[in-house]
């Protein structure tokens, strides 16, 4: 009894939120690059009315079809509208369609996935067949069919792209729920009488959130590209409102006259926006969930 067992206290060094974020970003430099790109995009979309040098829909025939210059960085279109200003304004459409449609897909898909994975049985069987049917369509074809029948409007494009995004979340969520469901901590929670709804939201959902964040980021990239394609086919916002895809479509008639700058701005803008979300999604996948690191 000379050396009594003394309680050992190990104190972890307290970290502030800011310092742990700094640590995270230093460990994942690609995240930092992605975040910077995303901030620039968001800034442009939020402050487009202030940054844009000209009114994007104001027709000035005298300035028509000017190549890029100091006055008009990306030139002007056939109605004398400043392409650079239209590109800046167009980011609002693309980002809002991206965010809203992904939210629709996220909400519906995750709910279906959680229920199917947790309940199992008939609901699971039926829900998954519907998801399979949605997956049987090439994504863009389905989005085109839905938008074409609802009518060429921006809201309908959001709905269509949202519906197309549902299966991705539903399948991912269901799979994750199935793998988490049999873990000890879920059994423990159930044993102490946690009600099912709370169990799903408080114990299962937080454990699959990482994978969903990655999926949402990559889905936003797809949504922006899909919106551009729909607009290009005339199924997005209608003229004269600026939208990248539609502006490229519009520029096609001046292709033979070599007025390349009319499509260069919107084309590169789509690329940058989609690239940002793809890049960020990839970085997030590596950082948050190494198990998900796929090559596909």
């Amino acid at each position: 009894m000379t050396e009594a067992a003394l309680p050992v206290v190990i104190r972890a060094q307290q970290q502030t939120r800011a310092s742990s974020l700094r640590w995270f970003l230093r460990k994942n430099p690609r995240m930092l690059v992605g975040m910077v790109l995303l901030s620039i995009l968001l800034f442009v979309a939020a402050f487009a009315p202030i940054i844009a040098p000209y009114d994007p829909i104001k027709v000035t025939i005298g300035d028509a079809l000017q190549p890029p210059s100091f006055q008009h960085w990306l030139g002007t279109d056939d109605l004398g509208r400043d392409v650079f200003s239209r590109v800046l304004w167009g980011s609002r459409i693309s980002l809002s369609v991206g965010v809203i449609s992904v939210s629709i897909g996220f909400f519906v898909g995750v709910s279906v996935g959680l229920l199917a994975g947790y309940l199992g049985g008939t609901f699971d069987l039926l829900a998954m067949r519907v998801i399979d049917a949605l997956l049987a369509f090439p994504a863009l074809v389905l989005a085109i069919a839905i938008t074409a029948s609802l009518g060429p409007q921006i809201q309908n494009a959001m709905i269509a792209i949202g519906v197309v995004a549902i299966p991705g979340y539903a399948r991912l969520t269901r799979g994750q729920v199935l793998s988490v469901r049999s873990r000890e901590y879920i059994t423990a929670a159930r044993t102490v009488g946690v009600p099912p709804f709370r169990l799903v939201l408080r114990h299962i959902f937080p454990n699959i959130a990482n994978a969903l964040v990655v999926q949402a980021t990559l889905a936003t990239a797809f949504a922006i590209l899909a919106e551009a394609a729909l607009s290009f086919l005339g199924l997005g916002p209608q003229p004269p409102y600026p939208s990248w895809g539609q502006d490229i479509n519009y520029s096609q008639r001046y292709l033979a006259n070599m007025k390349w700058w009319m499509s260069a701005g919107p084309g590169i803008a789509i690329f940058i926006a989609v690239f940002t979300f793809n890049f960020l999604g990839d970085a997030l996948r590596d950082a948050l969930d190494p198990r998900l690191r796929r090559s596909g």
Partner: protein
Amino acid sequence: MTTYILRRLLLMIPVAFLVTVGIFVIIRIAPGDPILTYAGEDPNPETIAYVRAQLGLDQPVPIQYAAWLSRALQGDLGRSFQTHQRVTEAIIERLPVTFELGAAALLISVTVALVVGTISAIKRNSAVDLLTTSFTIAGVSFPNFYLGLLLILLFAYVVPGHILPPGGFTPFSTDPWDNLRRLILPAITIATASLAVNLRQVRSSLLDVFGLDYMRTARAKGLRERAVIVRHALKNALIPVVTIIGIQIGAIIEGAIITETIFFIPGIGRLAVQAIPSQDYPVVQGVVLVSALSFMLSTLAVDVLYAFLDPRISFGGAQA
């Protein structure tokens, strides 16, 4: 193996059924009245009622669906509201064009991915590898319709000699050389995005295989490097690549719709895009149905191929 294929085909039936329901519902929720397109300009109410009854549009929706499905199963997808041509006929006329375009795109995407992906994996961290990896990120983010326009501009104004025409289509039977010449740009446009995905898959699955024991064994027993790569590494690395290619077929169908529009190619994609503004339901319905079914069948084909390539996959049923 036969059991596996049969089982997969059986599983396809409920999904195919839901797909047809989905297509029918999507088209019928549309606002606006297609009759107005069909009945011509300024029709009187009797004409409208007559046309509506003739097309069965006065029946309840489930009955309309049943009638549509039973006709569709017999190969009758109705007539175009605009041209009054049979939809099946219109699709069959144009399907070979889209198929040729899609096949060319797939060929480009897979061949380039295999060659460049292998070089990139062998010479890891070289200049080629760096270029490849940058391309794989950029390629998936580049909008294919803008790429199409850029290629048209490039070959119309920058590259001298007009080697590749900016669009149009010549049937292979009429002029094989012109057919191929006109196919190259649209096929590259479609192939780029899926090439990026395939390239990445080839590279990363080769890198995975390179670390395995049998590779060391193959080298240790004195095989030439070429044999090690082709016979041991590539053969095993291709298995996951096959799955990815299956998924890419969907992307190729999507690409065809956009690309045919840009390059004035008379395929089913252009058919659908032209039918949209005039609410020509039967045509849109038909094209969406055909593309969904082709996608399902090609996914099945790829899955079967996959099971065939990878003996570790059990076929289910009697033989495990």
